[in-house]
């Protein structure tokens, strides 16, 4: 990798800043898909209006600016700059080189097209090569099998099962912690170079 590299340019998508005019409409629509909300948080799933979404974006940019523990990117199509989703590096602990990730492709019809994989690869490179972090964590519910498969496919290792931590639709589910260490990511980079 050359120093003169575009860290946010993927094959299919690029990571970009929030567009405060266009994005609130789109993301407000996504929040009405409660299964997406459930996959991203343990808080009760709740749709947000466009006005609420605008406020939320302002709060996000304020937090990124002030906390120094958070990066928030929109995932945009390289083709037409349409927002496809978002991704976050959260809870950075600079002392220990750790953080948590979130990644979402908003529209059901846009999933399984490789946008998420493309975004995660950019995010991993950014976290390890630019932020110099040591490990990435994600927490996924057992009710989100697609999410679990996604992260495992990209080398994340299952580490913790908080038994029956989720109660949804009258059923309990484990909350699963997965992690990826820098050396594990580096080993995967080696493999892909040999291909």
């Amino acid at each position, binding site marked *: 990798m050359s120093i003169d590299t575009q860290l946010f340019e993927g094959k299919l998508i690029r990571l970009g800043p929030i567009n405060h005019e266009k994005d609130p409409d789109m993301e407000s629509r996504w929040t009405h898909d409660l299964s997406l909300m459930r996959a991203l948080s343990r808080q009760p799933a709740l749709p947000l209006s466009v006005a609420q979404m605008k406020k939320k974006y302002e709060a996000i940019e304020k937090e990124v600016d002030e906390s120094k523990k958070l990066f928030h990117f929109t995932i945009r199509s390289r083709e037409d700059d349409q927002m496809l989703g978002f991704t976050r590096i959260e809870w950075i602990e600079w002392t*220990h080189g750790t953080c948590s990730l979130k990644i979402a492709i908003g529209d059901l019809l846009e999933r399984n097209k490789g946008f998420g994989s493309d975004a995660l690869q950019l995010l991993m490179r950014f976290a390890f090569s630019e932020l110099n972090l040591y*490990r990435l964590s994600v927490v996924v519910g057992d009710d989100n099998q697609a999410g679990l498969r996604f992260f495992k496919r990209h080398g994340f*290792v299952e580490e913790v099962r908080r038994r029956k931590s989720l109660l949804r639709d009258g059923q309990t589910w484990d909350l699963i912690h997965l992690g990826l260490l820098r050396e594990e990511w580096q080993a995967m980079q080696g493999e892909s170079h040999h291909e």
Partner: protein
Amino acid sequence: MSDLLRGELVRLTAENPEVMASNFFLWYQDTGWVRFLDTDPSRLTSEKKWKELLDKDLDKESKDEIFFAIRTLESDKLIGFIGLFELFKHHGDTLVAIALGERDYWGKGYGTDAMRIMLRYAFYELNLRRVGLIVFEYNTRAIRSYEKVGFIPEGSVRRVMQRDGKRWDFKYMGILREEWLARQAGEVNDQ
């Protein structure tokens, strides 16, 4: 079950900001203790600042945290604290954290007793389905205490903390309502 917050060695209490401030001010200068408790680097905070921070908590009506001080029954001495955080009532799940700032009271059953009271409160008053916790792998005294009250290992977040040039795991432990109830029944039968 009238005295839900009283155990065999300690009781759990609510304290004024100035009381907790005077204790935190002293305890948080004990960096060995802080290293069992927090991933944040130790910092030194004045008693005045502690009071301001705790005063602020009075105003915020926190629904996802519950905090108690721990006092001994024998002399009413304030020896530590115990709290619930990440309390998700709609999932019936919480994390618990405990710390004894007074080192003279370590290894004598005070913490274990406080944890037993907190579990009883979590299951009998809050009607939670499970209680979980995070403990640093080098805190073997705490791990033994948690095992004693029935917490079961649920896995380790690998190499998540760096101290003294080494990387350390977080261990997660948890106890389910049905596991706790079974233990209660067992203890009654033992008597």
